[in-house]
């Protein structure tokens, strides 16, 4: 399976299409951190929100870049489950690359600062919270990107529609006064939590929520793949 993950990452990175999400990610981060200096945890919370669509889009591109017949060749070689799991893991590795860039970027451009007033978090604490904020956004983004991929939606139009509706859903349903917040992954609630004093139980609950949402969405993807090799 490692060989298939590597093969897919190589296929993704060698085509120019890998550039689009990376540039989009850097551009959003540049806009985000252009305003001035912020406390890391709070800034990272917002960064995770704006990167969520980029991560989902990158997943869709990575899965779509491989020709349909090549995907089926891999399926005949390694079997159906390992084939789709390998695709998601390749997307996860690419996503982790983008997350790393998002964590490092603000320090390079001076978008964040260390503790200024007493009571501000230390830099390692801010970094750890930022990493957590991005990592809980990654699985739902992978799931959304997978559901929007060509193998499921079968046409470019539907693919973009799924991606857009998913992202808009995350933003709208994630608002404070939402009636059914659990319909979307907790990207917005996590950003709000990171802006304040986040407690251990809250972090745990948000992590569970993100993983549960991703698990449900990925179960749907796995089931849909039965009929869509």
């Amino acid at each position, binding site marked *: 399976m490692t*060989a*298939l993950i590597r093969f897919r990452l190589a*296929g993704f990175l060698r085509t120019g299409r890998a550039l689009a999400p990376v540039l989009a990610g850097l551009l959003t981060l540049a806009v985000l951190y252009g305003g001035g200096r912020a406390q890391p945890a709070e800034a990272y919370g917002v960064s995770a929100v704006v990167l969520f669509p980029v991560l989902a889009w990158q997943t869709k591109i990575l899965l779509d870049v491989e*020709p349909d*017949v090549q995907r*089926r*060749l891999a399926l*005949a070689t390694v079997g*159906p489950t390992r084939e789709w799991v390998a695709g998601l893991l390749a997307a996860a590795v690419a996503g982790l690359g983008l997350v790393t860039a998002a964590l490092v970027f603000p320090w390079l451009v001076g978008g964040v600062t260390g503790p200024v007033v007493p009571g501000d978090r230390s830099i390692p604490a801010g970094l750890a919270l930022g990493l957590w904020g991005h990592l809980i956004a990654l699985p739902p983004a992978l799931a959304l990107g997978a559901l929007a991929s060509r193998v499921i939606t079968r046409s470019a139009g539907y693919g973009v529609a799924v991606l857009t509706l998913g992202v808009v859903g995350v933003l709208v349903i994630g608002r404070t006064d939402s009636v059914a917040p659990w319909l979307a992954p907790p990207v917005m609630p996590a950003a709000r939590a990171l802006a304040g004093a986040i407690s251990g139980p809250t972090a745990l609950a948000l992590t569970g929520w993100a993983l549960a949402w991703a698990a449900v969405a990925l179960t749907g993807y796995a089931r849909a793949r039965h*009929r869509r090799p």
Partner: protein
Amino acid sequence: MWLEDVWLRYRRRGPWVLRGTTVHLAPGEAVVVLGRNGVGKSTLLQLAAGVLRPTRGRVADRPAVVGWVSERFPADQPFTVGGYLVASARVAGLSRGEADRAVGRWVDRLGLGPFHAVRLSQLSKGTAQKVGLAQALLRPPGLLVLDEPWEGLDADARELVPQVVGEVLADGGSVLVSDHRGETARLPGARGWTVADGTVVERAPSGAGAVAVVELEVPVPQVADTVARLRAEGHHILRVRGHTDPAAATRPETGPPFEVAR
């Protein structure tokens, strides 16, 4: 390998492409799948290869290593011939060294040497088809599925397909080939399945070259003697299996511990 009462449609409430198909493919056996365009030949092949799952019914006892040569090779990929084949061998589970050796062997065999560093997207159709063939053979397949393998190949390469098929059969593998151009004559002794109206009909093999598989039961102490005697008489032993074989135990008609042909 068996396809047992296999039904397939591509969409819910779509038309059935295959209806209640039951076919058996024994080790060491080649089958040519015939039929008009769009009748479901590729569908049947992809079911056998494990690319498609039956909507109803099941595919049983598929060999662990399956080589599938698709109708068209997906050449729109950012790899060189050598890089692609090594990566395919690694995906198939070969180690780095094994992959390099297997790729070297098949690149030589199929005359792909001059194209080793050429990008897939720059290959001619026939050369790309050879890469597709090599990719399926890097790990000796227990089941080789060839979808129109002669398509686009030049005269020399056409002769290679029956050779390769013969080698897979000699190693106890099964081969499934689709063909709509009458190249089948190159595979003497192959069984024929005709796909029409969603069903698969066995076409009786004809001619002196036709072979059949005879399964017979022999008491365990006499196995060695019987095998030696049958070989001496010019028969081809496909495989010897014990009563403990769980797959055999579930099918009374194939219970016997011996399969002998030719």
